[in-house]
């Protein structure tokens, strides 16, 4: 995983120590695959389709998007005018366009809760427990459920006289609160759904990381009389640092690009619109492709910046995946 170059590929013909056998072979059979004229083209034959798709659906859009962001294009008409940085000026000066960032804070707070919960259960469940696998399954399953189905489950959950109200009155704390009715409780409720949905992923990642810590470490700690808490602080936390930092990054960029749950549940009403909902609406409902592109460019830049900062702060060994 930490390899930067692939030493497994064929060594160049002028390798310093050509094996005796190979020398003999290439002398006897001059036209082996190694010096076949097609040899140079071969990797490109394999890469042709993947690269074409990559460029068409990732790089061309990014390039176009940057270009659109400087125009007033509506996405349909053939003429578009260059408007300079006007879209960006609008984006940063019209407070209603920028307000959506405040909504991200709810989700950011939610991800802190989510990571804490996931860490607790991953720690607890990596030790021997009754019904361990059952609990594991229950905690992870929400992550696999279809987002639209989750949206409906929780629309019903937060409805007037729905699941939540029924539970609360069952517990003797009956309220008459419209959970999705005002911006504050609506965003809190939606962020809660996001915790419900994504804790399982963090949990499984942490669980995997904790279990890849060699067991002898725990035994040694045990012999030294370390408490569970000390084991957690000095063995588990350092052991899963890379995954932890990855989760933080995913949490931040995820909080900025929330779309599905609020779109399905409230359609962005009552102050629950997020940056992506706003962008999608600008682009596909109000035909403001130029402005929407500027929004998207800003979001992309923020996410790239966060990723870059994280890589600076936590130099982890997973960076050089290639």
């Amino acid at each position: 995983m930490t390899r930067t170059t692939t030493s497994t590929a064929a060594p160049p013909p002028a390798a310093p120590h050509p094996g005796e056998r190979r020398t003999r072979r290439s002398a006897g059979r001059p036209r082996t695959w190694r010096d076949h004229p097609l040899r140079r083209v071969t990797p490109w034959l394999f890469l042709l389709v993947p690269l074409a798709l990559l460029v068409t659906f990732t790089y061309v859009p990014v390039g176009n998007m940057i270009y659109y962001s400087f125009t007033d294009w509506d996405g349909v008409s053939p003429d578009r005018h260059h408007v300079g940085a006007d879209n960006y000026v609008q984006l940063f000066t019209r407070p209603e366009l920028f307000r959506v960032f405040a909504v991200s804070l709810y989700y950011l707070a939610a991800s802190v809760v989510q990571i804490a919960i996931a860490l607790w259960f991953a720690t607890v469940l990596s030790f021997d427990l009754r019904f361990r696998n059952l609990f594991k399954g229950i905690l992870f399953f929400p992550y696999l459920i279809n987002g639209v189905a989750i949206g409906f489950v929780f629309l019903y959950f937060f409805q007037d006289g729905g699941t939540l109200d029924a539970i609360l009155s069952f517990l003797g704390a009956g309220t008459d609160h419209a959970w999705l009715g005002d911006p504050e409780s609506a965003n809190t409720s939606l962020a809660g759904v996001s915790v419900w949905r994504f804790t399982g992923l963090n949990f499984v990642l942490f669980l995997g990381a904790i279990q890849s810590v060699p067991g002898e470490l725990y035994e040694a700690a045990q012999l030294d009389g370390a408490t569970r808490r000390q084991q957690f602080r000095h063995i588990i936390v350092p052991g899963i640092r890379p995954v932890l930092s990855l989760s933080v990054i995913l949490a931040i960029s995820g909080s900025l690009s929330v779309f599905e749950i609020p779109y399905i549940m409230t359609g962005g009403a009552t102050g629950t619109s997020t940056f992506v909902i706003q962008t999608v609406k600008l682009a596909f409902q109000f035909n403001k492709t130029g402005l929407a592109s500027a929004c998207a460019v800003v979001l992309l830049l923020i996410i790239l910046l966060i990723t870059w900062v994280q890589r600076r702060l936590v130099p982890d060994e997973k960076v050089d995946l290639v």
Partner: protein
Amino acid sequence: MTLTAPGRPRRRSLGIATTLTYVSLVVASLVVLIPLAVVFLTSLKTSREVADGGGALSLPDDWLNFSNYATAFTDGHMLTAFGNTAFILLFSITGTVVIGSMTAYAVDRFEFRFKKLVMALFLIATLVPGVTTQVATFQVVNSFGLFDTRWAPILLYMGTDIVSIYIFLQFIRGIPTSLDEAARLDGANAFTIYRKIIFPMLKPAIATVVIIKGITTYNDFYIPFLYMPSEDLGTISTALFRFKGPFGAHWENISAGAILVILPTLLVFLFLQRYIYNGFAQGATK
């Protein structure tokens, strides 16, 4: 690997800590299960039961009342939706596996000019979140005339799946090159080696990719929602989303629809649990 060191002296006295642990686990399980269970209960109720309701937690009168499922299935066009989803799954998964393994093979087994550049292109692409570029991707898809066809999501799912490329890359590195060399001596060309040696050996990685890709594709809402607005091109996500309109506040039908969509996931999960955990742990950390 479970951490059950035999010599571990766990204070088995059911101390406060152990009790708290179990309490937290039970509470978390209830938090996960109750919302789902209530929706399941609702799906079995008649519309009258839901309307004059004994509350969301009340039990249905008739536990075998599946009429809401029938309504959801037919009026919600779920059959078409499952068909479209299956079609998209089939092509995008096959495509992802073929493309991902070919890329990994080319990158790991060959030295060529611009190799670093190619890898950088794939690496940088992981940093670009798909949701941000859809405004412009939409125009690209549209210019190919693929808007509102099932090929739009198929191409998008195939073309942007960097995660699977990494999974294959990790795996292919573990396959000894001596196998390739031996095949070459027998006169096999690069493609034959890929097809006859590398690809069959990738089975575990393929299983991982199929599972991850399958579940994320099955659940995706954003792409089919943007690219396939026609009603007869609904996937299970968008078809379910459309329940919001016609069924209005008919929670018994909406619930049945939601359960119909969740059920296949539950079955797959129960049968493939172990692979799914590993798959996601592998996929997400790449």
